[in-house]
């Protein structure tokens, strides 16, 4: 496989404007769903066939008592060795040679939903209840194969999202982690070796989102 692409999500730069979440829906023509506030700014509340990207808000108190509020733009990690593919026998799920994007085809309707979802360390796959097809982020496959950035990356006003050849992104991540470590000793690039969508965090990943670094 070629080197392919990667996305970097730098949580230290995110101001939670949610432009990425909205851009994902606009590009992929996913319907807006009626939502309720259930006690958080986070909305919709979970990934679904109509929502492939969610800005996770997470908050709490640091040991010294100061509050924190973290923003985590969740999406499929496009793993190097995708766990979801364990269930796939007949190209229901494919990994694109050139880009590295992990794609669910319409044939995923034949897959066992629960098992496929369980196979994903990040709990990403969701089923379209009407068609039975499994859905998730495509890394904007139709855009990146046409020389365009993913929609979420393009819209980000603070450059918290970055897209590029995997090697370049890994390099950027490494440099940024070194920079962040000066202020935040826990700064890390999550699962950088194993996934294509790499999150930069400045604290314990679990404080961002329960599956930030995997189940």
């Amino acid at each position, binding site marked *: 496989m070629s080197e392919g692409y990667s996305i970097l999500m730098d949580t230290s730069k995110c*101001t939670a*404007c*949610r432009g990425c979440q*909205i851009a994902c829906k606009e590009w992929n023509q996913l319907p807006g769903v009626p939502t*309720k506030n259930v006690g958080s700014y986070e*909305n919709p509340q979970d990934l679904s066939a109509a929502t492939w990207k969610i800005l996770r808000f997470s908050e709490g108190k640091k040991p010294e008592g100061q509050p924190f509020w973290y923003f985590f733009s969740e999406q499929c990690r496009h793993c190097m060795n995708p766990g979801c593919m364990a269930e796939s026998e007949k190209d229901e799920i494919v990994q694109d040679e050139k880009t590295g994007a992990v794609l669910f085809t319409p044939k995923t309707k034949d897959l066992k939903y629960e098992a496929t979802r369980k196979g994903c360390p990040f709990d990403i796959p969701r089923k379209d209840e009407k068609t039975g097809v499994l859905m998730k982020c495509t890394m904007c496959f139709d855009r990146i194969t046409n020389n365009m950035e993913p929609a979420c990356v393009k819209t980000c006003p603070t450059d918290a999202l970055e897209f590029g050849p995997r090697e370049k992104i890994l390099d950027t991540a490494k440099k940024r982690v070194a920079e962040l470590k000066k202020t935040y000793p826990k700064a890390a690039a999550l699962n950088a070796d194993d996934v294509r969508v790499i999150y930069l965090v400045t604290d314990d990943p679990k404080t961002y989102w329960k599956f930030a670094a995997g189940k």
Partner: protein
Amino acid sequence: MTNHWVDLKNSDCILIMGSNAASNHPISMRWVMKAKENGGKLISVDPRFTPTSAKADVYAPLRSGTDIAFLGGMIKYILDNNKYFKEYVVEYTDAPFIVGEKYDFSDGLFAGYNKEKRAYDKAFWAVKKDDKGVPERDPSLQNPRCVFQLLKKHYERYTPEKVSEITGTPVPDLLKVYETYAATGEKGKAGTIMYAMGWTQHTVGVQNIRAMSIIQLLLGNIGVAGGGVNALRGESNVQGSTDAALLFHIIPGYLPAPNESLPTLAEYNKKLTPKSADPRSANWWQNRPKYVASLLKAYFGDAATPDNEFGYTWLPKLDAGQNCSWLNLFDAMYNGKIKGFFAWGQNPACSSANANKVRAGLAKLDWLVNVNIFENETGSFWKAPGMDPKKIKTEVFMLPCAASVEKEGSITNSGRLAQWRYKAANAPGKAKPDGDIMYELMNKIRELYKKDKGKFPEPILNLKWDYADDKGHFDAHKVAKQVNGYFLKDITLKDPTGKDLNFKKGDLVPSFAFLQADGSTSCGNWIYCNSYTNAGNMMARRKKDDPTGLGLYPQWAWCWPVNRRILYNRASVDLNGQPWNPQKAVIKWVDGKWVGDVPDGPWPPMADKEKGRYPFIMKPEGFGASFGPGLNDGPFPEHYEPLECPVPKNAMSAQFINPTIKIFAGDMDKHLTCDPRYPFVATTYRVTEHWQTGLMTRWQPWLVEAQPQNFVEMSEELAKMRGIKNGEKVKVSSARGEVVAVAIVTTRFRPFKLGEVTVHQVGLPWCFGWIAPKDGGESSNLLTPNVGDPNTMIPESKAFMVNVIKA
């Protein structure tokens, strides 16, 4: 803003207090983050840990309504630790002024208080003047009656412990903020403040800002790059519409509105034009008569003549003390005293404090004209939940107008920058630009008065009203030129160097320095003179030269006054005109002239004993004022509790609340303090996804999906106490109303420890309303109190008391 958005990058320390800029002025953070990249510090002080706090180096919580205590403590810290910029303080501020004998302060009250009138006699606060009438000064700052010493004495009481007991801010957090910010008092360092409605919407709103202004003067932060006092205005053109005086108390250009005691123009000029006996004070307002005469010529054109005082008598006059501000307006409406009402591009049914009273008032009108781009709670108030249309007589005219991209004109941003915008498309359907609506409406009114005389038709028929193009459409350029002003006859004037300048009748006036009091010039708003000249429309400029490297961009659009990008910039240099910070020189005296920004007047630096002028040119005496003898509630900011508060007494003095506020006493004007039924402090704010009342954004599906419903944020401790789970619907109620909202139980609100007492606070956005989206919830302004600041009458929407229970 004394400074402007790009200038934030020049700051060494940015205090964001009374604002959540990251959510509400998102692009400002672009420049804040640049300051941080350059090593600047960001401080966030807010009752709630906000997205702004999440990006700050230092965060400190405080209980809503206690900003003066917090800032008073900082003033004390600066003075006690000698952090102030002495040269600046002595030379450019009123710190050396000697205050008269009658001034005193005791236990929360200043001298001159009249309990019956709930007002002060400000004569008690006068500063001492010598026999020429010039203020007496003690440059050593040792005189016990000098402003500096009085300031020190006033804030002696504001110890960190006392402040903490009031604000609930832990002492170490307080000190961290004080230490970080006070470091900008060093010569060459700049600190700035970004504030918004979190400071203005209080019964001590003006004094909140004054407290910070005192800090900025002490630290030498006004006039410099990366400094200033910066109000983040919330509406795209609220700066411009304020400049244009869509307010009862002023006429365009911040000229006072005429009143009964000023029956003639001569008396208006005589009484309102300030005088200074000090030849070194520029006292800019001495030019007021020129601006008034030119404004009257713009209003009434050829009909304005010296014989009829340029039409001054045609202007409405207020009674002495008559206050026609917002809260009084809706009080009058509620009491049936108003018959016709224009709500033009505004949604008071959701935006006003105590909105229930507003809605009840709307039902008492004969007719309502609502101009807007979307249906809204004001125009459709008669079908709101709980309203019975059959019983409401109010006629409503709902006029659809053009959106911002469907017409041409300028708007003025928070940094006083007037930028031109162009028409991209026609308005949909029958919607029309507001300019056309008002133009046609006034033409119809004029026709009626022409046909059938009616009462006092002179101002209506004499009003210059010729702003249409050849096709009869409203022409923004014609107005822009009128606002800039014309020479009305051929005239020869002198430039600052004494050279003759010849102007022809019909020329646009190049600067307000050329406006005349004799009717030979017209100008709709003197501060916009220079915005549209014979050289063209300055507001439409898009050149990006940046000679100072500070991001002033002098040829990008146009900034009032006279394209000056940083106000009071003469205070950014020493007596010889050399910048305090040579690396960030706003202006500089080089070879007998100023280079850099447009200086605050042409005069040479102060070292020129004869021609030099003090830098604070808009103050009659020319000095930055720590002592404010002109305000209604005292010359120094003093902590008072909000009208509705959680504590039984003011820990600072025996004076519980601001002694000069007006308290309405009608059946819908309830307020309850320390009432066990409403035990929690509440505040209101906005979210990124919605704007103001949500009138525009609640009709946009993607934004609604992300932020669908009204909510109330509260601490885990409060939620536990009330048995409320995160995400449950709760009822939030105040003495005035209630809303149902979703509980967000959060660590970002923490209970405040006020000494031994624990106080809880909650917060709600005010961007929802019944009309859309479905099940989005009601306006949180149903809860807020209609009590205002004694100077501005801006309501106290940011600190009031509520109860929260499971719905």
